[in-house]
């Protein structure tokens, strides 16, 4: 459990005496997890009661409560529930291969954007240790995946997606232009949306969005993304321990990357700083997608 939550351990994963600030952060994180579990118990109990009352009740598609309670959606179920999109073209924006010793699983997750509607969704290949040799690990993907039938799991901002088969085609400059067009240019509206989604206790705590920044700069040592209206978001790696840090890579990028580009960013509300911050995952330029994490 400690390992799962990453709680009560220092930067080197050791349990022991921690500096006050770190202890404070851990307590905030733990309380948030408890509140989340509490909400899950309440909502889960209500849902299960409904199911007891009506055994024929179909799985809810407007929330991820079934998955929270352990239901493993099959592709056939997703199709039956109408959670299917056809002829979708997807571009992978980020990829992460994780080892989760607490859950005894390898998790390969990809962040994808649909070129048609700009929605950002995620793939997850979960390989339990015991079955790892029988399940092929996923790799990062640098082309466009043309998917005939895309199944979308119930969920919030970045729901999980799956498909049976796809045809790859090379990524063209037009595709990059499309991704850039889908990026959110108005930070203020986006921030409102993110805050609104975060208040739901079972919402994804670190939603991913594409945002178009006018420039990246520094204010008092903090790296900041600013939109064309002057609205700002602070960049930070804090609290996202399962992804490698990426903010320090920004000064190493070509100067052209520091203005008028699109950032694929993970939002996170820092409960101690009481601030909403973003962590860059990739930069999309007219020429390429520069991945900053793996």
């Amino acid at each position, binding site marked *: 459990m400690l390992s799962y939550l990453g709680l009560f351990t220092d930067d080197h994963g050791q349990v022991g005496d921690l500096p006050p600030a770190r202890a404070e952060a851990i307590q905030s994180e733990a*309380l948030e997890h408890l509140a989340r579990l509490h909400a899950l118990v309440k909502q889960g109990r209500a849902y299960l009661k409904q199911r007891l009352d009506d055994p024929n009740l179909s799985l809810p598609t407007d929330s991820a409560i079934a998955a929270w309670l352990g239901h493993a959606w099959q592709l056939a179920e997703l199709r039956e529930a109408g959670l299917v999109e056809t002829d979708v073209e997807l571009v992978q924006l980020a990829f992460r291969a994780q080892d989760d010793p607490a859950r005894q699983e390898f998790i390969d997750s990809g962040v994808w954007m649909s070129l048609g509607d700009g929605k950002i969704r995620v793939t997850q290949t979960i390989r339990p240790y015991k079955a*790892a040799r029988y399940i092929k690990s996923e*790799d990062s993907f640098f082309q466009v995946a043309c998917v005939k039938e895309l199944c979308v799991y119930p969920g919030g901002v970045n729901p999980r997606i799956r498909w049976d088969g796809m045809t790859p085609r090379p990524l063209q400059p037009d595709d990059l232009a499309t991704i850039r067009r889908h990026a959110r240019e108005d930070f203020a509206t986006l921030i409102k949306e993110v*805050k609104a989604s975060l208040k739901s*206790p079972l919402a994804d705590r670190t939603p991913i969005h594409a945002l178009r920044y006018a420039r990246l700069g520094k204010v008092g040592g903090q790296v900041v993304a600013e939109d064309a209206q002057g609205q700002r*978001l602070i960049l930070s790696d804090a609290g996202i321990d399962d992804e490698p840090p990426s903010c320090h890579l920004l000064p190493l990028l*070509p100067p052209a990357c520091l203005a008028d580009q699109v950032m694929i960013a993970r939002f996170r509300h820092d409960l101690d700083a009481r601030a909403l*911050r973003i962590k860059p995952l990739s930069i999309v330029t007219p020429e390429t997608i520069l991945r900053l994490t793996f």
Partner: protein
Amino acid sequence: MSIAILNQVYDETKRLAVAGAMVAHGDFRLKKLIAPLELAGTQAPVLAKVADAARRVVEGEESQTAEALLDLAALVTAILFTQGTTGVEGQLEPIESIHLEQHRSIGIQASARTLKPLLDALTGTGSGRVAQIQEAHERGLFRDPRLITPALKALDDPYAEIAEIMEKKVLPLYGKAIVPLLRADYDPQGKTVNARRLRLIHRLDPETARPLVLDALEHGSKEVKLAALACLGDGPDDLARLVEQARARNQEVRAAAFAGLVKHPDPVVPGLIQTALQSKDYQTVADIIQESKREDLVVLLIRQIQTDLDGLAQLDDKKEINTRVERITHGLHALNDTGSTAAEQFLLNLFPKRDQWIKLKGTPYSGNDLRDAIIQAMATFSTATQTALAQAHAEFEADMLARCFKAGITSLSPARLFDLFSPYLTATTPEETKHPALKAKVNAKSNSAKAFVILETLGGHRSGSWWDRHDEESLDDQFDPRWLDLALTHQHLGAVVRVGKIGHPGLDAFLATTFQETISTAKDPNDLYLIVHALVTFRHPLATDAILATSEKMVTGKYQYYHIWWLPSLVAQLPKASLSRLEEMVPKLKGYTQQQWVEAIKELRARPWDPELDTPAQT
């Protein structure tokens, strides 16, 4: 909405959660907040809800306190999520872009499947990591900016060889761009990793390093101070500092100071070096001269060696003999790689006198060691010394013949090499050279022992390291084709591999037989290492069968990927026609080996069509 009071409620809730729900009921600090919350609730109804939730904690049924506390926590957290600050006030300063000097290649991004094992190698502690990291460096993978952080961390790898690769090969790739990152972690009081950081900063950006270097000389730890000395430049101030440190009590500090001094063109330096050569710093200074390659200093070293040689033959005292011979052998070794014409002439003059001191007995250094050192120096110094050594082969017994032959490989024409050394093989039968007892019982003067040495020099060491082949590959063309016939006659696999040519019928038959014999008796993957490589390298028709048979054998044994790490790397060199058979193997493999295999198949699939290896029908 009153954020301040909400924050207070959150802090109190957190405090109570840490303390435990059993102390939450009636908590006066939380209770004190209820009234202000209710007041604020008249303006913002959500705060009235918070007030209700807080009241249930402090005044509700005691048995329900835990649940009430969680309700309050969930509510306050949810509200705070909507109230987080986002921006920051102030002038937006530009980020100073210190983009990678090779920024054109920054867009090259490795796949996760390539990165993962490399990251494991950089952050793990197991064996086999050096080869993996080295290979990644050669493939240019470190130009992916995502590897900067792990590469910087690996500068502190407990295995010094990896830290060394990071310092000398990998991190310099990023140029000035990483200097701020190195500076951020630099601690002048720290240990070796900080010395590495300082040296790197100096190498990448001497201007930035200068104040750090001067500070480290004054306040640095021993390791950092040594690094700082090595970073001193050629200004007059630096010279004075180095001269001062050359008199330090600590031997390592003196060594670092001398290393700095030899970079100075100042006329004071040769005098200081000459004095040091006569002191207990002799060996250290000799090594520094070797590194510097300065002709004027090499001449000083030669003079010192000559001084030590003068009168050596007349010495009786074993201790004195030992001391002198040790100094001379070290000095001769230090001449190597200097490229000095004076040193070459000195060695050519010394070589004929090598037996002059043979009867001297010291403890432990004796006249024999001096002779060996002279031969060793001849064997490596230059083409002229190597030629002289090779041409003198008849004067040596088997133990020294290998050095003559190696020197000849490098320096003589293929025909001359064959003429000089092939008689050792033609005068010997295969039974004599194959006899295992030869390895244990060598009569150094017998021709069979000498023939065995020739074969072993050609390829006997190969069972240990395949990389040697790559190192020597450029030399292979220097072998007269007749060597292959001789190697096949003596059935020496290593020698055959060294001088082999693709498509030679005798070679193909020999490799096929050798593989069948080896696979049936191999107990360890390494037993198959050389023959499988040979089959693939010489594009033998059985190469794919050999790879698959070896894999099958290893799968049934309890071997880890590092026992057969070399196997997948050969897959990409097979004909494309092998693809389907290779793919059938994938499910039988495990873990990392399976991943490597899949990657190798991918590489083979992507490999351009090779008209000599792939028939049109196979593509």
